[in-house]
């Protein structure tokens, strides 16, 4: 097999390797490696690569489940329809807006939480960590309902609590206006996922060498200087990973929006558009095209992150 040929070619380049290349033992090890890792690899491809290829294919057809006989090949026609529709661009704008605002707030809040946990007294540290894991453990749908009922004009108590704030009175219907509805949606998203970001940042903080901070303190650096010159630069990798993963997550936002407004009053996001097109309206061809466009957006975000911020994902996420 070609793999063993490669092993022979590679062998002289690696004088440090003590194991004999191409020995029966090495071959057996490779075989075992393929057998053990193979099933997981194949299943991952089967559950994602296969469906997305299927979506690519189906997106080229005009195909409604309600009229299967009318199925016809339209090439990139579905894409042209979507990209020339203002609705798509508005939904994209809402999605990007939600992504940017939530990630920025979560980063600030998560960093503050991480600092608190990092410097808290031993006695409370465990309690704090336990408490902030609660939002992580809660189903997004449940959190969406909790926020929805709190703000809802019928069952909510927020209006009566904050009646003293200008602009809030008992008649304020949070979910009947784009901006107030988006605010509640984003607040619930931020509540739910800030703990995850703060745990990542806490792990990053733990990796900042203590001697560096101490040295800076001895040299008379202020808290702010220590933060911006020593601590943050040293945990850049953790910050970048946290930002990228949260951004990708926020871009796929669905549950909160579905529960709170179902996309009404200009709060529709891309995931919801895809869902509505294919599952509700049964337009498989058009829905597939939206799904593919969403997938392309995610790839673009990754690409920008890797190029712009030079995030080495494999390094940061534990790859060799």
């Amino acid at each position, binding site marked *: 097999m070609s793999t063993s040929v490669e092993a022979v070619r590679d062998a002289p380049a690696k004088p440090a390797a003590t194991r004999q290349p191409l020995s029966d033992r090495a071959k057996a090890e490779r075989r075992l490696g393929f057998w053990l*890792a193979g099933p997981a690899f194949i299943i991952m491809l089967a559950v994602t690569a296969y469906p997305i290829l299927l979506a690519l294919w189906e997106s080229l057809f005009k195909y409604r489940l309600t009229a299967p006989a009318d199925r016809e090949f339209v090439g990139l026609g579905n894409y042209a329809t979507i990209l020339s529709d203002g609705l798509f661009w508005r939904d994209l704008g809402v999605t990007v807006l939600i992504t940017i605002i939530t990630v920025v707030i979560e980063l600030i809040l998560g960093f503050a939480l991480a600092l608190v946990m990092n410097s808290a007294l031993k006695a409370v540290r465990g309690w704090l960590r336990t408490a902030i894991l609660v939002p992580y*453990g809660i189903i997004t749908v449940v959190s969406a309902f909790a926020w929805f009922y709190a703000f809802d004009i*019928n069952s909510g108590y927020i209006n009566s609590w904050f009646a003293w704030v200008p602009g809030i009175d008992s008649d304020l219907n949070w979910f009947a206006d784009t901006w107030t509805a988006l605010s509640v949606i984003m607040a619930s998203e931020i509540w739910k996922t800030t*703990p995850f970001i703060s745990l*990542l940042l806490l*792990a990053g903080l733990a990796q900042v060498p203590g001697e560096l901070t101490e040295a800076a303190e001895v040299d008379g650096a202020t808290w702010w200087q220590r933060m911006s010159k020593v601590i943050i630069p040293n945990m850049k990798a953790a910050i970048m990973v946290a930002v990228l993963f949260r951004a990708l997550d926020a871009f796929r936002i*669905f549950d909160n929006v579905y529960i709170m407004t179902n996309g009404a009053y200009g709060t529709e996001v891309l995931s919801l558009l895809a869902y509505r097109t294919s599952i509700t309206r049964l337009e498989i061809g058009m829905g597939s095209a939206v799904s593919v466009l969403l*997938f392309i957006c995610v790839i673009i975000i990754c690409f920008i992150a890797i190029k712009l911020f030079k995030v080495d994902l494999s390094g940061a996420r534990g790859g060799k």
Partner: protein
Amino acid sequence: MKSSPAKRRTIWTIISIVVVLYALFPVASILATSFKLPSDLTSGTFLPTNWSWSNYEQILVGDAQGLFLSSLRNSIGICLIATFIAVVLATLCAYAIARLDFPGKKLVLTTALGVSIFPVISIVTPLFNLWRNIGLYDTWPGLIIPYLSLTLPISIWTLAAFFRQIPWELEQAAQVDGATTWQAFRKAIVPLAAPGVFTTAIIAFFIAWNDFVYGISLTSTEAARPVPAALAFFTGASQFEEPTGAISAAAIIVTIPVVVLVLAFQRQIVSGLTQGAVKG
């Protein structure tokens, strides 16, 4: 400019209370709602004026019982099976990555990363059509298979990070001391690997338990609809009544076991989440 210990303690107490309030408030909010009578729902207060178990009765023994209990059964069954399959496959895979020398290790990890950033909704559309054609729509396997796209990648990453930290030399040491290969593996490695596998199982289960998109898209009846989807499609005792109380009660019932799990295994969960993501 060091403050006194007493002052320090006060400041930290206040900060801790703020953080705990932040984390628990929405839970307390839905808990309070779950005890409200329908007549009390519009009172605009946080706490119910009359505490009542009627919402719990409605979903556990009353008319919403069928809907709620069947979705609970579906969620538990589907998530356990999806977690079990993912953890078994990921354990084999992560063992190979940490322990064996074979080409393609990096490819497996990169694929796992790629799968974990995949937008779920992009897979749902083609699966919806495919499942309807081959009869998997609205069945348990019809959800278990797509759930693997959620549980498998994170399991591989977390376990690979755990397994890299195991001192594999122990195995050889045990062999030198006269143990057979299998004995050495079982006595020296399995006890070290077990906590990582367990933690991974909990994290994978959470992720499956949290799914909503697959749940509402690939099911249509009580045959396979999981809890989060069932909550979204809940209707009240009567056509004209908002099911707010019943949904809140159901939400509390599905939240409590998860929160108990989190509290019981917080140390392991934190290390599992952050090792897989940051350190490696």
